[in-house]
């Protein structure tokens, strides 16, 4: 299996582990991730404004590059996935945005949302299958009680993201089971960590992140995993640090024996 791969800027700086372990694990699973040559920053926030296209263009370029290679586009950072997936939906469904973006970019053939955008976790679930992963695990993480933290961007808006049930997601818990550990379900796994607020109101971000960690602890978790660099930063820096927080790819690499 070969996929186009969009790492995103944070994965080249603050969240190198999310990227490096993701690549190693993919290799161990027999998947080739081809990093797009010409990817640019996704902007990290999906622009809701209908009257401007500038902030959508980098996503459209990446999507079109994947289309040229006839490959699905795999993302791994929650924010990148959120932005690219929603922009792709716009290119598919919003004639006005699609027309203006295509006019500006002037591809040989207009891009109309043809590329399939999948998150790394979706690739594990839908393309590889958790059962297959289970068989390839050489180092099952037995006895580890892991709380999956989804955050908000992977799940919502659920109708567009089509990732999982936003109120009762299971994909990360299934992932945790597949690598041999025990998932811990807790109330705040799908609540916002307050990450975006950390610059202008740190106390608010601390409050929100603190709730997530306390809620996971209450249910007996020993550690938290996430797919989002911003969440990871926030859950680490804006809490008492009592629970270790890691990227899900790190545990996958560990379980597959390639860490």
């Amino acid at each position, binding site marked *: 299996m070969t996929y186009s791969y969009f790492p995103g800027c944070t994965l080249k700086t603050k969240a190198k582990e999310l990227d490096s372990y993701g690549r190693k694990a993919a290799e161990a699973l027999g998947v080739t991730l081809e990093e797009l040559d010409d990817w640019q920053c996704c902007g990290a926030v999906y622009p809701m404004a209908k009257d401007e296209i500038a902030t959508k263009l980098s996503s459209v370029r990446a999507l079109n590059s994947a289309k040229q290679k006839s490959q699905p586009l795999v993302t791994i950072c929650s924010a990148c996935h959120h932005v690219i997936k929603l922009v792709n939906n716009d290119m598919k469904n919003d004639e006005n945005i699609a027309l203006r973006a295509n006019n500006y970019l002037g591809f040989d053939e207009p891009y109309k949302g043809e590329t399939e955008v999948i998150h790394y976790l979706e690739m594990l679930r839908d393309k590889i299958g958790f059962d297959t992963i289970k068989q390839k695990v050489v180092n099952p993480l037995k006895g580890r009680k892991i709380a999956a933290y989804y955050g908000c961007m992977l799940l919502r808006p659920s109708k567009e993201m089509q990732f999982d049930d936003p*109120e009762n997601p299971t994909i990360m818990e299934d992932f945790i089971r597949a690598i041999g550990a025990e998932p811990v379900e807790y*109330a705040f796994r799908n609540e916002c960590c307050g990450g975006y607020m950390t610059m202008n109101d740190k106390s608010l971000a601390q409050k929100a992140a603190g709730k997530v960690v306390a809620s996971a602890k*209450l249910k007996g978790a020993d550690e938290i995993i996430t797919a989002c660099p911003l969440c990871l930063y926030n859950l680490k820096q804006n809490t008492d640090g009592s629970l270790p927080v890691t990227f899900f790819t790190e545990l996958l690499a560990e379980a597959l024996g390639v860490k």
Partner: protein
Amino acid sequence: MQRIGVFVCWCGSNIAATVDVAKVVESVKGEPGVCFAQDYQYMCSEAGQQLIINAIHEHKLTGIVVCSCSPRMHEATFRKTAEKAGINPYMVEIANIREHCSWIHKDKDEATEKAVILARAAIAKVNLNAPLQPGESAVTKRALIIGGGIAGIQSALDIADAGYKVDIVERSATIGGKMAQLDKTFPTLDCAACILTPKMVEAAQHPNITLYTYSEVESVKGFVGNFDVKIKKKARFVDENKCTGCAVCTTKCPSRKGGNEFNCNLDNRGAVYIPFAQAVPNVAVIDSTRCLHFKTGKCGLCEKVCSAGAIKFDQQDEIIEEKYGAIVVATGFQISDVTKFDEFQYTKHPDVITSLELERIMNAAGPTKGTLLRMSNKEHPKDIVFVQCVGSRDNTARGKCYCSKICCMYTAKHAMLIREKYPDVNVHVFYIDVRTPGKNFDEFYRRAVEQYNVDYIKGMVGKVYENENGRLTVQAVDLLADRRIMLETDMVVLAAAIEPSSGVKDIASMLTASIDTNNFLTEAHPKLRPVESPTAGVFLSGVCQGPKDIPETVSQAGAAAVKVVGLLAKDKLVTNPCTATPNELMCNGCSSCERVCPYGAIDYVEKEVNDHGKREVRRLARVNSALCQGCGACTVACPSGAMDLKGFSNRQIMAEVDAICK
């Protein structure tokens, strides 16, 4: 060539505002056969009908076209008018320029053009119409009620009291339905069992009523006045005539792991059980999926303890065939699936329950003997939160777009009953709107607020979760105060949307009765024929037609019964003369028509035919015109074009198509 009159109705402004009726009149005047055309404000009024009669006399018309509303509305009216003026009623054609035209278009030019085209099609057809004579069919003086809840019971009692035989088919082991599960009923707070069980007994003892419990309708054939129904009486593995209802077997049964449906699975029942103490019939039933005897061949304890010798492990399903003149659908409702609303944690936490489950918890015969307890730890709650509209008025894929209608009232009832019995419990109700129209209903709700101090909060709950105190935290918004609120509570009660019972689709297709997008059965007319299905002889009673409370259900059940009695009181019914007839020279006996006929009206005969001088015996389709309902399925299915429908012949249909495409 016919002499045709065209009558274009304004329908007040319903048609005339969107269709230029004068232009329609002018446009059709040159059509073949048309000798007269006129528009009028209300063609269905007495003056309008007189206008038609006068025109028929004056212009010696032989056929008429009325451009008006749907034929479902006034075809019968105008046929009578034609008959009064001395022409055959089947020489009338309706061009539907209201539902099919003016109501769905905005542009007047386009709508007018379409109205003219529809009128031309009807004119082309009426040119080929021939006078038809309706026949007669007999009426079987017996009614079938599908569903034994309060709706079915009431309809049955009313029909039986009028002197006709009625059979109730109920798929569960007892009649009583959802009402039997209720504790108290609004707005008077009398106990449901006290008012329902006497009716159940009356139904069982009525000389004109036969109960088929633990039975399902297997197939329905025939038509109004003459339905042939097969009923499957599922094996109870208990002899109904011998069982005394002593219930000894139910207490001895060792297989007790499965949930008790009557108590919403909040406790367990044995594999042999009587649904509840007042069940009618008061006869045990063995659930073969749970019974150890059926699973392992051993046990048989119930057989040993039954002093009446009623246990019959070898009992088989039985098929009962019966004829009916009328059928009442009273299949009721079920609670919709709340597992899709996981923000409320229904699947995860035992203290999050549905209102029907609370109903059982509050009931003296329920799993907690009527004591309000948290299901998680069996402790007395201090706070209860009710969430209304869970799945109702919800346009997303997981909910229902409609209002379930009963939830505001039963939630007020629950709140009030809890405050009355346990004044120390704080009750909070989250609502979108409180909708309490109905006699003494709003007063009832006001009493909950003003007299019982129930805390009503306008807003919805976004999340429920277990907190560090072992209680539940409810995260919500108070829209009136415009603030986010966090409430700590011990129980959360969800007023889940109601939906038509499972299996209603199968019943509807058996009866060829139509259902809407929410699986509610459709009435023949939403205002004027609310208890009749568009399928003749099929009537609707209770929630199967739309959400309603007990008083409304009972009224509708009575109304359906009156319609049934009106039908059964007739000795003969006029049959539709628009029936299918095969052309014997073209029929090749292939059986295609027989296969598609939903009424079993077609069979085959060996018959000698004279095919242009060649005499031979052929297998030919034969239509029983008493059974044929004129649906036309056979005319479409026939590969050789041998089947034709009177009044809707292939030639007539093609003439209409030609007129439209001209």
